[in-house]
Structures are given as structure tokens and as C-alpha cells.
């Protein structure tokens, strides 16, 4: 290698500063999307005969209820934690080209397994019992998702179909498990599990300020998971294979990657994340399991993952936004008497606008650099 190529290769290593367009897509579009969604939300309220003062009050409540106090922040984080966990799994799936609709079911199965471990093994110290219960949740969720992965790899059954079916099965399975004498709470005829023992509960973090603050140490599990997924996706050979299979399965196959194995691994990992989200709910929020504890988190997680562009940091941000909307939405109800359904509308609008950056660019032309037609040659 001569000097010329040496100096050239040095130059090639330089990273271009992130383009204006990237910045706009990552930051400006979401900000505008939120603004547009809020405006249209206000229009929706007007259309249902809510007066302007109440609308103003409700948006103040939205902010106050999501970040306006220690309790608000605690609630935002509590709601965001399971969403982020489950959608990290979704994100890995998306990166690998798998559309896992089954987070809801995996979350239920994982949460259920965590509860069972959580109320068994009395007398175990927390530092053994809690990790054990969390791992049980992750493993159960992972195995459950692995069924869909295996079906896809071995038979070609599409994971969208199989995970939807597994969701339906999980509802009944949880119903059934909750009625087993070893699981069902004594003296109850309805499906409700025994209570998780103290040693397996995710300790609350802010009880020293106010016993009502629900924020629990699942937050740390979530933060570790964000880092772990980032590392997995971008620093390891597993992640490289996942991303390659997702971006161009044919090229991945030509590069000697084994698509079947990758599909199974990705599904198991996604299921494990959803399972952890379930464990987070049962061990940290509810302390027990009932049929409805998944609360649609597995479906919201799809939106969060899409919103976060399947990037761990993006998922974290999107999850926090959704958590804030949930906590703030509650306050909107209390302070302004606005229906909780409105929050769902606003959430949906935000997703629509973030998913359609071109639309946002059209609405706010002054917010963006003048568009240039990107084209080669």
C-alpha cells in the first residue's frame, strides 16, 4: 500500500456530520407532530362541545400530570417502563424484519411466570428471589415467542398470523392458570393469583418521599435493557446478523448467515423483553396477576417501537412520551373532566404525523430546509 492510498483511507474514515435532513427527521418532525396532534385534539374537543377554557385547562393538566410534580414524573416513568421494555423486543424484531404482534401474549405469559415464582419460594432472600422471578418472566416470554419463531423458520408460517393466534391462546391460558388451585388466591372464585411475596417485589424507589409514589426499580431493569439492546444490535455479531437479515434477507443469506436460526433467536429475544415487561407489571405494579394485567401494553409497544424508529434510544424517548401521555391524560380527566378517549386520539394523531414526515413538512414548510430532490445522477 503506497502513501497515496494511505492518506486516502485516512480521509475515508472521517464521519460526515449528521445531515440537516437527519436532524429534521429525528427531532423537528416529532416536535411538530406532537404540536399538530395537540391542535387537532383540541379541534376534536371543540367538535364534541368542550369549551375553549376547558381545553386550555386540559392541556395544562396534560403537562402538569406528566412532568409537573414528583408524583407526575413517577407516574410517567411507571407507565413508560413496561412500554419501553416490550417495544425494545419489538424493535429488535423490526430490525430483523420480523413483525411480532405477539408482545401482548408474551407479556402475559412472562408476567404469569414471574408471579408464580414470586409467590412461591417463601423465605428466599430478595437478591435471589427477585432476579429469579424476573428471569422466569423473561424465559417464559421468550419460549412462548420462540414457538412463533420456530414455526416461521421450520414451516414458513408467517409470524404475524402465528403471534396473533398465540395472543388469543395466551388469554385463555392465563385464565386457566389463574384458576389452578396452586395459583388462585385462597377464598376467591374469580381468576386472581396469590400475592407476590415481598422478597420478589420490585422495590419502590420513592416511598421515602411519599408512600403513594409508585415508581419502582423496574426502571433500572428498563435502562439496562435499553443499553443492552443497543449493544446487542450495534456491537455484536448477533446484532449485525439481525440487522442484515432485516435489511436484505437475500444478501444476508448470500453472506452465509443462517436465517432460520436468526429468526428463532430474534423471536426468543423479543419474547424475553415482552416477558420482562410483564414481570415488571406483576412484580412492580400489581403484585399479583389477573386476566387483564397486560392492559394492551403489548400493542402500544408496536406503536412505540415504530415511533422510536426501532432504535433503542428512540424507543426510550417514544416510551417516555407515551408514558407522559398516559399519566397526563389521567390528570386531564381529573382536572378538566375530558374523556380518557381523547388521549387515545392524540396518541394516534402523533403516530400518524410522525409516520408521515412528508405530511408534516408540507404543513410546516418554514420549519424545514428547502427540499431538494434527492436523486443520483
Amino acid at each position, binding site marked *: 500500500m503506497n502513501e497515496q492510498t494511505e492518506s486516502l483511507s485516512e480521509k475515508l474514515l472521517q464521519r460526515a456530520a449528521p445531515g440537516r435532513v437527519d436532524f429534521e427527521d429525528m427531532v423537528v418532525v416529532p416536535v411538530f407532530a406532537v404540536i399538530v396532534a395537540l391542535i387537532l385534539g383540541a379541534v376534536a374537543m371543540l367538535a364534541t362541545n368542550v369549551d375553549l377554557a376547558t381545553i386550555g385547562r386540559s392541556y395544562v393538566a396534560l403537562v402538569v400530570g406528566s412532568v409537573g410534580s414528583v408524583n407526575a414524573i413517577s407516574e410517567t416513568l411507571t407507565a413508560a417502563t413496561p412500554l419501553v421494555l416490550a417495544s425494545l423486543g419489538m424493535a429488535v424484531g423490526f430490525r430483523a424484519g420480523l413483525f411480532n404482534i405477539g408482545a401482548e401474549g408474551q407479556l402475559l405469559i412472562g408476567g404469569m411466570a414471574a408471579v408464580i415464582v414470586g409467590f412461591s419460594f417463601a423465605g428466599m432472600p430478595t437478591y435471589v428471589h427477585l432476579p429469579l422471578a424476573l428471569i422466569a418472566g423473561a424465559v417464559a416470554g421468550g419460549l412462548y415467542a420462540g414457538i412463533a419463531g420456530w414455526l416461521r423458520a421450520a414451516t414458513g408460517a408467517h409470524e404475524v398470523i402465528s403471534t396473533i393466534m398465540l395472543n388469543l391462546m395466551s388469554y385463555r391460558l392465563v385464565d386457566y392458570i389463574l384458576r389452578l388451585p396452586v395459583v388462585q388466591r385462597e377464598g376467591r372464585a*374469580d381468576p386472581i393469583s396469590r400475592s407476590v411475596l415481598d422478597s420478589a417485589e420490585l422495590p419502590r424507589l420513592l416511598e421515602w418521599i411519599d408512600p403513594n409514589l409508585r415508581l419502582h426499580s423496574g426502571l433500572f431493569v428498563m435502562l439496562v435493557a435499553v443499553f443492552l439492546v443497543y449493544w446487542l444490535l450495534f456491537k455484536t455479531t448477533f446484532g449485525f446478523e439481525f440487522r442484515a437479515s432485516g435489511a436484505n434477507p437475500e444478501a444476508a443469506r448470500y453472506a452465509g448467515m443462517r436465517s432460520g436460526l436468526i429468526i428463532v433467536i430474534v423471536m426468543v429475544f423479543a419474547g424475553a423483553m415482552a416477558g420482562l415487561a410483564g414481570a415488571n407489571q406483576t412484580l412492580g405494579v*400489581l403484585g399479583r396477576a389477573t386476566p387483564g394485567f397486560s392492559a394492551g401494553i403489548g400493542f402500544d409497544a408496536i406503536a412505540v417501537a415504530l415511533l422510536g424508529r426501532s432504535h433503542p434510544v428512540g424507543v426510550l424517548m417514544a416510551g417516555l412520551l407515551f408514558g407522559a401521555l398516559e399519566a397526563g391524560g389521567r390528570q386531564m*380527566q381529573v382536572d378538566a373532566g375530558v374523556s380518557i378517549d381523547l388521549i387515545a386520539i392524540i396518541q394516534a394523531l402523533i403516530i400518524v404525523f410522525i409516520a408521515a414526515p412528508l405530511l408534516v413538512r408540507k404543513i410546516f414548510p418554514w420549519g424545514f430546509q428547502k427540499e431538494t430532490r434527492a436523486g443520483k445522477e
Partner: protein
Amino acid sequence: MLELQKNKVLALISGVGILLGSTVAAADFTACQVTDTGGIDDNSFNQTAWKGVLDAQETLGIDGRFLESQAETDYEANIVSLLGGQCDVIITVGFLLGDATQAAAEANPDQKFSIVDYAYDPAIPNVLGQVYATDEAAFMAGYLAAGVSETGIVGTFGGINIPPVTIFMDGFVHGVNYHNAEKGTNVAVLGWDVDSREGLFTNNFDSLDDGRAYAQNLYDEGADIVLPVAGPVGLGSAALADELGVDKLKIIGVDADLYLTDPAKQHVYLTSITKRMDATVLDVIEAAMSGTFEGGVLVGTLANGGVDLAPFHDMEAMVSDELKKELDVIRQGISDGSISVGG
């Protein structure tokens, strides 16, 4: 009415006083309600309980707020967001909020709570549970059904196998059995086995289709009177009765007098087993306002009007005067304890 009758009068007086004295100023008493996942407009117990708050707003001039729960994980969060002194009493609606209410009440001993359809044993000092001896009214409904049925078969089904549901079914079965024992009839009840605690359940509280299908099943097995204990699900059963004709299938409503709340299908209801949650909620608010609030249990019974059998309305003619007389006797017997509704 109820054991808190005297206080109610006092409260009423003071309430009227407030109303007269401060028509402009904001109310200085706030009652807050947390619904379960059925929502505030469920045509059933969330709505009935909220009517109690609305009644209090009207008669006592209080402020009322509610929070709807989207999912089970919201219960605790919703209760917590009402803490902090903004609510003088927090009313949680539904058996399923039992755990969350208990946790919040224990963490906040100074906050007054009341829960509909749940009671704690041992009692929590700042929670007043509102439970209903619906089996008393259901017992009467069972006796009535056994007396009216022409096929000799009546049916029932529930939403979820939980005590507030099955208590209706228990009373209903026992009422039928009482009729059989007294009159030597042999009327059978489909859909609930008192001993094994198993029966017919839709496992939801919202599918009208299920209500229709379950009633159809019971009708196919010969039942000509059906008691659906599943909130709005029963509306589906009523639709079926409407199509078949009331001579083939009659429905017994629950919670509210469905003849009044479901006017489109009112002709299919033989009667309704009413659960006056609005009355008990109003009582709780009055007690909290007058300072007589105490933790424990408030039981709605036939005797105090907390539960009742609704009038027969259009079906008046179907029920013989003799049967009406017997029902009056039973009501008396249940109230004075001479008849046990527990079978």
C-alpha cells in the same frame, strides 16, 4: 332508609342550607369516583353509582369528579391521582378495585374511601364497603320465575364467576327451590350449580352477542325465563326475547329496573332485581359530609331498600294475585329473618 337515616335528614337540611347559602361559590365538598374498566356510561353499576354522586350534586350541592379506568393497571394509579386532599371521599366502584382500594386506604389513613360491591374483613377504619344482599331480591325473583314459568325450566348465566355475580344466581336458585318445596312443583334451574359453584359464564361484561347466544342456548334447553347477570350482556338476551316473543321467553333484569333504562325492549322484562347503588352512594356522601362516616360495611337489603324487586309493569297480568300475595309474604319473611335465602 338505611341505618344512617337520621343523619341523612340532618345532612339534607345542611345540604339545602349550603345550596341556599352559596349558589355561586364553589362547593366545599368533593366526591370522587373511580370506575372499573366498564366506564362511566356502562348502563350498569358504574353509571348507577355515579348517579348517586349526581344526586348528591343536585341535592347537596357538592362537587363530583370521576376517573375512568382503561385497564386494570390503572386502578391504583387513578386512585393515587385523586389523593392529596382534593377529594373528601373517594368512591371506587367494583369488586375488582378491592386490592387497589385497600392499598391506597392503608397508605392514606386520613382519606375517606368507600367501595361499591366490596367489603373488608377485618374492616379498614377509613373504608366503608357497600355490599348488597342481592340474594334476597334474587330469591324473590326465583320464586316468581318458578311461579310464572310454563315449561318448568328457568335459566341463568353470569358474566364472570365472582361473588357479586354469583350471589344473584344463588338467591335465584334458592328462590326456585323454595317454590318447589312450598308448592310441590319441580321447576329446574339451568346455568348455575350452587354446590359445585360452576355454571354458565360469558367471561366478559360487554359482548351483546354472547348475551344472545347464551340465552338462545338456555331457551333451546327449554327455559322460558332467563336471568342474565352480566351487565350490558343481558341486553343481547333481551333482543332475543323480543324476537321470539314474550310468551316464549322472558328476561329478568339486574342492577337497575331495566324496564325503565332499556325502553326499546321494556316489554320483555318480567321484573328486575334492583341494586340501589345510587342510594347507598348518596348515603355515604351524606355521612362523610355530616362527619358520621365510619369504616365498615353498609349492607343494602330488602328491608332498607338497598335491593328490591322492580314492579312487573307490562307483565302485571302474567303474575297471579295469589303469587303476588305469596311474594309479599316472602318479602316479609326475609326481612324479619324467618325465611333464609341461603337455601
